[in-house]
């Protein structure tokens, strides 16, 4: 009987009865062939690979992280709750020590979902990783978490959620935003005033091959993780960097994904995108599962690899070497230009957010209290073209007295304003209110 070198948990939720729309890439069929391949390979018979049953997440799990407009029920379907819940099952398996790592192969994905949710962006409503991380923090008392987002699209939702959190290192490796949705994720996006340098974006040019990904991992991502010393590493495992993917332009293979996971050794991986449902996902997922379990992946290969895979062009290799060099200078060698931020000062920013799937335009105005003692309280006033005008106040875990007070004050003030709803997310007291 085959043995896994590392005990690995699998949560598989293909949601065979859920789709965004009948011909949408995010539809019933998406994980069908992955399941076929996983079953045919006999992966679940391997001693030390343990499949878990999913359960739905509750609204209380979502409220720790999102401000859902007007409420959770309006922006989620059952499949969103089960997808997020599948991540909680994976988290429990790892944190209880039943397995060394776990992979949640769930649909729909979540990494484009931001803190305020008016609807669906980039096929996402609920940020699965964030729901999971805050559940872990609440239940297991873990503080320092690193997210490595290897989806081909910038993990803008996760970046938004952890923009102000100095305890979460967010690293996104993605196809350059000048060439792909959502058009963000540039190196100058480095985190809010209290968490400067905690967001790291690594935009790679189209046609980046396995060589480039593994180079970035080795030269930049691993040293960043070593420096941050996280208690937990989460991989947002999007699989759309694959050379067969229909909606991206990258050049990664199943074995490349396997090598990446073998090196990264995430505690928990969560499936994000990946829409080559027939000729990439089955092989990539098998490769990742085997790599997580510490098994030899040298026989994992797409049937068309030998004929269709094109090695990475040399100019791309040069470009990536320069980029990595520059980012090392910024994030590892003290070159980060920080913006001075006075204790107690309230910093503001405004921005527009577009929800491509649901065609929602959102306008946000955000205020955050600069704080040396805690991650800092913040508020977001958000207006959408659906007629909602809300105020959301967040008091972070470990908030200092001053931040708790300003959070309460903002909330009080908000309730007297002309908002359709005012939300309070008080992570210190565990109070989640909405008017």
């Amino acid at each position, binding site marked *: 009987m085959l043995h896994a070198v590392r005990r690995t948990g699998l949560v598989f939720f293909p*949601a065979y009865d859920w789709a965004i729309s009948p011909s949408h890439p995010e*539809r019933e*069929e998406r994980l069908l062939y992955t399941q*076929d391949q996983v*079953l045919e390979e006999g992966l679940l018979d391997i001693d030390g690979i343990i499949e878990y*049953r999913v359960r739905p997440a509750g609204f209380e799990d979502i409220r720790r992280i999102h401000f859902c407009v007007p409420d959770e029920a309006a922006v989620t379907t059952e499949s969103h709750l089960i997808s997020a819940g599948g991540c909680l099952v994976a988290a429990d398996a790892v944190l209880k020590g039943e397995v060394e790592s776990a992979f949640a192969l769930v649909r729909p994905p979540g990494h484009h979902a931001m803190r305020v949710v008016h609807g669906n962006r980039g096929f996402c409503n609920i940020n699965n990783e964030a729901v999971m991380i805050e559940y872990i923090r609440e239940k297991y008392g873990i503080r320092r978490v690193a997210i490595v987002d290897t989806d081909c699209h910038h993990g803008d939702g996760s970046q938004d959620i952890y923009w102000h959190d100095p305890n979460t290192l967010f690293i996104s490796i993605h196809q350059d935003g000048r060439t792909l949705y959502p058009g963000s994720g540039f190196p100058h996006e480095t985190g809010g005033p209290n968490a400067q340098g905690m967001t790291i974006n690594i935009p790679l040019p189209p046609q980046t091959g396995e060589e480039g990904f593994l180079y970035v991992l080795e030269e930049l991502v691993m040293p960043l993780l070593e420096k941050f010393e996280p208690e937990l590493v989460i991989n947002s495992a999007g699989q759309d960097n694959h050379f067969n993917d229909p909606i991206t332009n990258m050049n990664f293979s199943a074995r490349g994904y396997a090598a990446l996971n073998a090196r990264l050794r995430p505690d928990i991986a969560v499936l994000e995108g990946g829409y080559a449902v*027939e000729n990439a996902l*089955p092989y990539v997922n098998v490769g990742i599962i085997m790599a997580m379990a510490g098994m030899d992946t040298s026989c994992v290969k797409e049937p068309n690899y030998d004929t269709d895979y094109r090695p990475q062009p040399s100019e791309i290799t040069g470009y990536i070497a320069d980029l990595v060099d520059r980012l090392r200078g910024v994030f590892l060698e003290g070159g980060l230009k920080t913006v001075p931020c006075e204790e107690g000062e309230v910093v503001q920013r405004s921005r527009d957010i577009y929800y491509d799937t649901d065609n929602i335009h959102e306008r946000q105005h955000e205020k955050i209290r600069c704080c040396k003692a805690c991650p800092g309280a913040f508020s977001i006033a958000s207006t959408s073209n659906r007629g909602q005008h809300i105020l959301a106040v967040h008091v972070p875990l470990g908030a200092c007295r001053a931040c708790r007070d300003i959070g309460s004050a903002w909330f009080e003030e908000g309730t007297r304003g002309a908002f359709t709803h005012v939300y309070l997310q008080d992570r210190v007291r565990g109070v989640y209110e909405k008017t």
Partner: protein
Amino acid sequence: MILGLDVGGTQTDAVLIQEGRVVAAAKTPTTGDLLATLRIALENTLGHVDPGRLVRMAFSTTMATNAIVEDRLDDAGMIVSSGPGLNPEWFSVGPSYHVVDGCLDHQGFETKPLDRSAVMNAASSILNAGIPVLGVVSKFSVRNPWHELQAADWVGHSFSHVAMGHRISGALNFPRRIATTYLNAALYRLHKNFSDALIHILREKGLSGPRYLLKPDGGTIDLDMSIQRPAQTAQSGPAASVMGALALDGCEGVTLVLDVGGTTTDMSVVIDGTPLLKPLGIRLGPYQTLIRSLLTHSIGIGGDSEVRMAQDGKLKIGPVRRGEPAGFGGPAPTPTDAMITLGLLDAGKRDVSRLAMEKVGETAGWDGAATAERILQGMAEAIAASARAFVYDINAQPVYTIHEVLADQRVEPTSVLIIGGPAPQIAGYIGKALGLPCRFPRHYGVANAVGAAVARVTSEITLQADTQRGSVIISEAAVENDIDAGFTMDQAMSLGRAVLCRQAAINGADEKGLEISILERQAFTMIRGYMRTGRNIRLKMGITPGLIPEWKRGG
């Protein structure tokens, strides 16, 4: 009149059933010579019955199981084609295992042709090693059997028997397909010899009615047909006990069935008369297989388990069986001795049993009766704990649709049915330990033989239609037809039904009034680049385990 015969580890039970009732039962010790045991059991049971009145015979035997666990399998050569994935060398089995080039993808499209010269070379090397039977397996052969058929066509004529992977089961699992195909090849000759000898004995006794073997899924198969897939007759004992419980009781609601034997206790769950099946397949010795089976769990605790007082002052029961209970002259105290001591069982030498009990309880300062009482409680609690873990595991099975998650249909037993020798003595204790009503049926001692006798033929088909590939496949029944783009679920259903009925008839079922269950029914629209390119239809239907119509419940 129907004959049912169950070969157990220590005893072979036989029953005669007439007009839906058990009219005779006999127990015969099982010896090392399986055929001699069968012959004696038949003589003990049939006595003066007119052989011409027997209209059906069903056997649950240990032939295949014993050959596997005792490692008495014939040599079989294997030719395997894999393509990408896990390293196929990891699943090497038998003395002559050959991996050849060739690949099908998950849809059944050929992505690399089967390497003819490699197949020929592998076959020569197997034949040169003096091995006359062959197994051929390719990855995803249940989506397209082409490569297995090609290999069999190229080299099959040189072998006395060729087992093909896609004929075993429509389920996906390449390593299990390899192991199961190997077992079918390696058991072929042994099973053929056994069945020829059995038929000979039956003829000798003038018995000529239809003959069936019990399978681990609780169904039966015609003895002659079983020769093609001998591994599927292995490990049918636990299935016999479940079917026996079902026959004698009916099992309304959610019933936990416990078969308390001498060495082990087997457990299973029956929901409204339908036993739960194991999701994939049974494990036989070191082999994970695709052989469908009932979901059963076995623990090493039974009436003859050794009882001892451990260092920590706690009673330990099992998992070892040293032999007969002390009261029967055996070497160690057992729960059966406890029953004898308490007067629950009138057998053996009561004073010897009581003495054995006193000795066990000596250090704790308990007398014989107190010790016996604690042993039976301990035995019941151990069985109860194991049963709770079994039910917990059933409820932890993964599900794959929103519907299933929300339905969250948890199995929660509402009663316990006990069969096996000590059923009347232990029922009260187990009922108390589980907090559930506990009962035992008439003929509890020969329930397995009853189960074998009245279990109906089961059969299952797995249909996969792919309009993009233009084919519909029913792997187990060797059906591969071309279809056009308009092939519908309705067409799939009617094809599936027709093939299932045909298959069941071949396996020995009476074609009238077959109860067909839909086990899986899914259709996916396949879309490439926002264009609909086809439909993928998946259908699994079967004749689930149940009882022949002639049987009258309760016996």
